[in-house]
C-alpha cells in the first residue's frame, strides 16, 4: 500500500543472482519486464512487413540499424544514469561540443587517436562536473544538467564562433587521418554492417556486462533504489553516481564524434539540439524508471529499436513528418503507461 509496494517481484528478473527454482522457462520469460516492449516491437515489425514492400529488406533493416546507433550509444549511458537515480539533460550539448571539437582538432592536423582521446576526455570531464554538482554540490541533477546543457552549448558556439565545422582535406585534415575518421562514421564491416551499428553493438554489449554482472552495476541499482540503505550498506553513493555521469558524458562524446564522421559537417547551433529528450524517451520506453533502481540494457536496446523502427516505418508509409512527431509522442506515453499499469497490477 505504500510507495515501495509497486516494485513487484517480476520487476527484477535481469538482476544478477536472482533465480527462481520453481519457475518454468516460459513463466520466467513472461515475467521479464522487457517482454511487453519486445511484443510491441514484434507487432510493429509484422505490421510494417505486411503494409510496406521494402521494410523487410536487408538494406532497409541495416539502414534502421545505422539510424538508431547514435541514439542507442547514448541511451546505454543514460540507462546507467537513470538507474543510479539521476538524470542528464546535457547530453545533446556534449554531443555537439565533443564531436565538433574532435573535428576541429582533426582539421588542425591532429592524428586520429589524439583527437579521439581529447574528444572523449572532454565528454568525460563534462560528466564529472555533472556528477559532482549532483552529489557533493547537492543540486538536483535535473537542475545541474539543465544548467550544463546551456553552458556546454554556449561553449560549443564560442569554440566554433558559430561557424560550421567541416572535416575535409581542403580545411587541413591529414588524408590518412581523414580516411580512417570517415570509415568510423561511413564505413561498413565486411562491406555490409554499418560501422556505427558495430559500435552500438559493442557499447550495448559492454554496458550489459557491466550493469548485470559487475559490482559497479550492483551498486548502481542499490544506490538508485535506495540511497540511504546503500550508504548504510557501506556503498559510496556519490562515487557510483559520479561514475554513471562520466560514462554518460563519454558515450555522448563518442556519439557526437561518430555523427561528425558520418556527416562530415556540423554546426554548434544545430547539432544534437533536443537529442537529450529522444535519449531519455528511448530509455524510459525500454522500462527504466525515472525514480531510479530499475532498468536493463536489453530494455533500453528494445526502446531504441521501437523509436527507430517507428520513425523508419512512418517514412516508408509516407506519413508526413509533422504527423510522425505526434505518433512518436503517443508511443512514448502509451509504452510507459502500459508498463506502469502492469506493474501496479502485479503488486496487487
Amino acid at each position, binding site marked *: 500500500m505504500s510507495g*515501495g509496494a509497486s516494485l513487484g517481484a517480476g520487476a527484477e*528478473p535481469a538482476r544478477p*543472482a536472482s533465480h*527462481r527454482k520453481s519457475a518454468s522457462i516460459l513463466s520466467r520469460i513472461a515475467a521479464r519486464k522487457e517482454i511487453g516492449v519486445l511484443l510491441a516491437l514484434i507487432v510493429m515489425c509484422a505490421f510494417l512487413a505486411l503494409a510496406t514492400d521494402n521494410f523487410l529488406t536487408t538494406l532497409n533493416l541495416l539502414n534502421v540499424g545505422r539510424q538508431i546507433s547514435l541514439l542507442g550509444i547514448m541511451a546505454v549511458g543514460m540507462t546507467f544514469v537513470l538507474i543510479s537515480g539521476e538524470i542528464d539533460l546535457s547530453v545533446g550539448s556534449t554531443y555537439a561540443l565533443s564531436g565538433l571539437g574532435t573535428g576541429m582538432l582533426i582539421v588542425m592536423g591532429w592524428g586520429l587517436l589524439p583527437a579521439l582521446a581529447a574528444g572523449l576526455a572532454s565528454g568525460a570531464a563534462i560528466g564529472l562536473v555533472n556528477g559532482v554538482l549532483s552529489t557533493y554540490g547537492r543540486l538536483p541533477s535535473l537542475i545541474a544538467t539543465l544548467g550544463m546543457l546551456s553552458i556546454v552549448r554556449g561553449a560549443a558556439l564560442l569554440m566554433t564562433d558559430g561557424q560550421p565545422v567541416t572535416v575535409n582535406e581542403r580545411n587541413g585534415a591529414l588524408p590518412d587521418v581523414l580516411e580512417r575518421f570517415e570509415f568510423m562514421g561511413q564505413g561498413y564491416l565486411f562491406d555490409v554492417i554499418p560501422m556505427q551499428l558495430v559500435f552500438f553493438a559493442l557499447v550495448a554489449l559492454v554496458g550489459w556486462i557491466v550493469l548485470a554482472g559487475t*559490482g559497479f552495476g*550492483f551498486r548502481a541499482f542499490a544506490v538508485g533504489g535506495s540511497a540511504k540503505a*546503500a550508504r548504510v550498506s557501506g556503498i559510496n553513493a556519490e562515487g557510483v553516481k559520479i561514475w554513471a555521469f562520466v560514462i554518460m558524458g563519454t558515450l555522448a562524446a563518442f556519439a557526437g564524434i561518430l555523427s561528425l564522421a558520418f556527416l562530415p559537417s556540423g554546426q554548434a547551433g544545430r547539432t544534437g539540439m533536443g537529442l537529450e529528450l529522444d535519449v531519455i524517451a528511448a530509455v524510459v520506453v525500454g522500462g527504466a524508471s525515472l525514480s531510479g533502481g*530499475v532498468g536493463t540494457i536489453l530494455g533500453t536496446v528494445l526502446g531504441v529499436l521501437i523509436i527507430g523502427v517507428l520513425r523508419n516505418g512512418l517514412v516508408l508509409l509516407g506519413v508526413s513528418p509533422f504527423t510522425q512527431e505526434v505518433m512518436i509522442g503517443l508511443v512514448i506515453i502509451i509504452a510507459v503507461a502500459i508498463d506502469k499499469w502492469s506493474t501496479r497490477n502485479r503488486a496487487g
Partner: protein
Amino acid sequence: MPSPLLEMRNVTKRFPGVVAMDDVSIDFRSGEVHAVIGENGAGKSTMMNIVAGSLQPNEGMIRVDGSETAFPTPLASQAAGIRVVFQELSLCWNLSIGENVMLPALARRAPLLPMASRRAGHAAKPVLDRLGLSSMDPETPVERLTVAQQQLVEIARAISQNARVLVLDEPNSALSPAESARLFDVVRELRAEGVCIIYVSHHLDEVLELADRISVMRDGRLVTTFDKTEETTTADLVTHMVGREMETSDQYALREMADHAGETVLSVSGLCVPGELEDAHLEVATGEIVGIAGLPDSGTAVLADAIFGTVQRRGEVSMNGIRLAPGRPAHSIAAGMAYIPADRRGAGALLSMSVAENTVASALGRFLRRGFLRRRPIRDTSEEYVAKLDAKVASLGQTIATLSGGNQQKIILARGLVTGPKLLILHEPTRGIDVGAKAEIYAILKSLAEDGMAILMISSEMPELILHTGRVVVLAEGQVSGQLTGADITEEAIMSLATVSHRRAA
C-alpha cells in the same frame, strides 16, 4: 440491544495468491474501545483499509447503524463519520500545525477563498490543547516537529472532526510515556462521549490498559472477540495471536550475561551531534547486549547513526582501540561494525533488490572477482543465512519489498552478519514486527552474544530492554544519565533516569 455502530458481515478480501480477510464478521459499538490485535499479516491493516474505504471487499457487507452500506471511496467512509489515523503519517509538510489540523475543513472551502494560517491555528487550538500540545505555536510548520509531535497532530486532525468511529493504527509507536498517557486520557474522554475507538496495536500492555473488548486476528480470520476482564493477561493475548504458548522463561537468562562481558569492542567518548547529543560516553564489550533507553528527544534517535558514521558528529568512536573517522560507513563496516537502522523500509532494506542481493550488499567486495559478480558464492551465502536465520522467503530472487517486516529484518540482519562483524548496532530492531518474529530475533541476538558478539540495541520498547539486554544505558537530554544492570533493569528505574534534567542540575 441497539444495532452496532459499525459492523462487518462475512467480509472476505483476496489479493493475488493470498486471502487477506477470510469470512470476517465483527461489530464495533458506540462508546467502546475495541482493540484489534494480531501478528503482521494477520489481516488487521486490510480490515482498517476497508473501514477507511481505501480497499473494497470481494464478499460480504458493511453496515452502519444497522443499514447496509458501502465505502467505495475514502470520502464515503468519512461521510459516515469514520476517521482513520494510519501508522504512516499523511501530513502536508509545508503547512503549519493549525492548517494540517483544519485541513479537512479547509479542503471544503472554495478554492480561491483565502484562509490565514493564523485563523486556522486559532480554530485548531482547542483540539491541540486537548492533546497536550498547548505549548506549541499552531503556526509552526509540521516539518519542524518531532515524529511524536507529528503523530499527535495527525490524531488532532482526526478528532477535530467529531468522528463517530476513530481508528488508531499503532498510534503511539513514537510517543513518549507522557504523551501516550495524554493520548489515552483523550481516548477515554472520547469513549465517554460515545465515540467508538478501534485501536490497532502490537503493544499488548496498552491494549489491556485501554480496551473494553479485544478482537484477535490470525491468518486473515477473526479468532475471537471477548470482553477484557481483570483476569485477562498479555500471555492470554499472545496465545490467541500465535496459536501456541510462548517460551518466556529463558529470556531472563540474558540478565546474567553482563557478568560474562569480555574485552571492550566499542568505545565512544565525548560524542556530540548538534542539537541532539552532547558529550555521550559508552562502551560495549564482547558477548554482552547493551540496551540504550531514553525519551524520544533524548538523543537516542541519532545515536546509532552517529556511532556508525551516517550523520556528522564530533567526539571519538573507536573499535578495538582504532579510532574511526565520521562519514565513512564503509570504514565502520571494515572495522567490524554492522548497523541495522530503525527505518527499515527507508534506510534498511535495498527495497528494489532481491533477497540474495540484500544479503551480500555490505560485503560486496568478497563476492567480486576483478569487478565481476560471483553468482554462485552470492547464492550460496544468501541461502546459508536465510536458513540460519530461518527467514521465510519464496526464493532468493524475490524482492525484499515483498517480504513481511520480520523477514525483511532478518535479511537486513543477515546483510550485517555476512560482513563478519564484532559489533552489531540495532535501532528499534523489532518495530512493527509481529510477536512470533520478535521472539525469533531475540533468540538470534542471544545466540550471537553467546558466541562473543558485542550488541548495542537502541530501543523505545521497555519490555525489549528489560527482558533482552544485560545492561541498559539511559540517555537524557543528549547525555548519559546512568546505567542499570541485571535485576536493576526495571521500567521504573529506566524512567527515573530518563527524566533526569542535566540543565536543571547544572
